[in-house]
């Protein structure tokens, strides 16, 4: 296993699985109820009772971060899967069929990519009723285009390889060639790119909920925690620092793992 040799990648893997575990087990391991308001302990600095302090409503910051991990990770993973599925199917169609289908899909990609991505995500989240589904839809709508462009290129390359020609010569139907011969060879690249995107989606979800467009209160999210700590940044900086570190460590871990996966699977993709 290469990953064991690479200390940085190994610690990233440990952190990432730790965060996933925390997200899954939050109801069991969080020291306090993330929603219970305690007016006697408003904005308490970090202590043994409250490791990361309490917020402006006396809620335990650590418990809120643990529950926030659930939102962050599930939104990021679902958004990645959604945008990858759309991007993969359209990219496959476009690259394999060519002609008019290709022209239409390429144009759709160009249009979506002409939008500044965060602005488009904000726009979509603002017009739909706020909540988790809206964030996922917004990130999926914004994210599929670059996947599709990459997949189209990959499929075009694979299509020209000799083994595809032999499959055709053997009498495989177009449908069979696309699904059984081209897709499996395009999939590893898609998975690598997807793993590199998870970090970006975590940041995007945090940005949306920072602007109040994500999951709605009282549900804790990392972005909204930072947003509500903004007004107390000098008197209670832990309200901003702790959730920000949670975002940073999670994103760094997933980015390192993505890099590692890319290098292990295909060194040519190295950026």
């Amino acid at each position, binding site marked *: 296993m290469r990953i064991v040799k690479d200390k940085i990648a190994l610690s990233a893997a440990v952190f990432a699985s730790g965060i996933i575990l925390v997200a899954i087990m939050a109801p069991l391991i969080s020291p306090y109820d993330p929603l219970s308001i305690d007016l006697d302990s408003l904005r308490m600095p970090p202590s043994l009772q409250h490791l990361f302090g309490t917020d402006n409503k006396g809620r335990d910051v650590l418990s809120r971060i643990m529950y926030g991990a659930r939102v962050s990770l599930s939104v990021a993973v679902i958004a990645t899967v959604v945008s990858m599925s759309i991007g993969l199917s359209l990219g496959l169609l476009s690259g394999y069929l060519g002609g008019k289908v290709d022209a239409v899909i390429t144009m759709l990609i160009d*249009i979506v990519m002409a*939008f500044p991505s965060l*602005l488009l995500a904000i*726009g979509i989240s603002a017009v739909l*009723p706020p909540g988790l589904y809206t964030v996922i839809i917004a990130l999926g709508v914004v994210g599929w285009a670059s996947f599709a462009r990459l997949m189209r290129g990959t499929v075009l390359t694979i299509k020209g390889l000799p083994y595809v020609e032999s499959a055709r010569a053997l009498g495989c139907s177009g449908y069979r060639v696309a699904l059984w011969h081209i897709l499996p060879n395009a999939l590893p690249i898609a998975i690598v790119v997807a793993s590199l995107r998870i*970090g970006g989606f975590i*940041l995007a979800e945090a*940005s949306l909920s920072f*602007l109040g467009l994500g999951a709605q209160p009282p549900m804790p999210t990392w972005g909204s925690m930072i947003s509500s700590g903004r007004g107390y940044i000098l008197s209670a900086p832990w309200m901003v620092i702790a959730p920000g570190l949670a975002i*940073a460590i999670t994103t760094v871990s997933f980015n390192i793992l993505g890099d590692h996966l890319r290098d292990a699977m295909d060194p040519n993709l190295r950026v």
Partner: protein
Amino acid sequence: MHAYILKRLLLFIPTLLGVTIVTFFLMKAVPGDPAAGMVGERAPKEVVERIKRDLGEDRPVIIQYIGYLGLILKGELGRSYYTDRAIAEDILEKLPNTFKLALAATLFATIAGIILGVVSAVFRDSFLGKTASLIALWGISLPVFWVGLILMLVFALILHWLPPSGMGGGALIYLVLPASTLGIHSAAYISRITRSSMLEVLSKPYIETARAKGLSEFSVIMKHALRNALIPIVTLIGIDFGSYLNGSVLTETIFGWDGMGRYALDGIMKRDYPVIMGTVLVGAVVFVAINLLVDLSYSYLDPRIRTERKG
């Protein structure tokens, strides 16, 4: 070359039409009535109807869209529902602010990114190089709005070295925090691309030739390697600059910067449709135009691309 530019410009038109269609119909499809929003939900029906008529909202959607396109062709983007100010004028007022911030952020990102990238490529096996790579990795993983708040906390609220927010009537010192916040992601990307581009170039035979000629290592790296490694970096800088010109929603909001991003966000939050459509349209035009420029400069920098396209 001219034919190539012309072709790219023509391809620009359907993309822009697509952008207007997407924005326009997205805004029309949404729940929530801006006319009712302006006067409050309990306003009498007649008042709401009259406002709708004034806004032209009682006409069929297609007619409204064609009317909108007509306005754009005249260089107008309509008026804000709330302030009744011409959006084109508002945008012309905010664009220079955003331009200034984008320029400063790009400058910061380019200098910091290239230095970091060169260091991590040249010293790749040592502690210094590994640290530089790790800094770049953290740079792409930090949430922009959080970096902005922490920088503000440390340098403005605790140390009092820099102003926390606002534009200070154009004083350069007000640019430092927002520009470094905005530039941090792109600095990290630039450093990663610089690193891999440098590593590739450093393994080329002409670098060995330069060394064999007895040139100093500094001159080999700066003159022979970096210059040739710059092409992919230029592309990245251009694209980032284009996206900054759309205004950075988060950075501008945190630092109270009166630019396009904050204007757009304000429009989105208030459901001020003409403002949203105007900013997104201008943003997309700028973005696509910059990409076109980057593409053209690319073929200027690398003659091989030019000949490929001719052939």
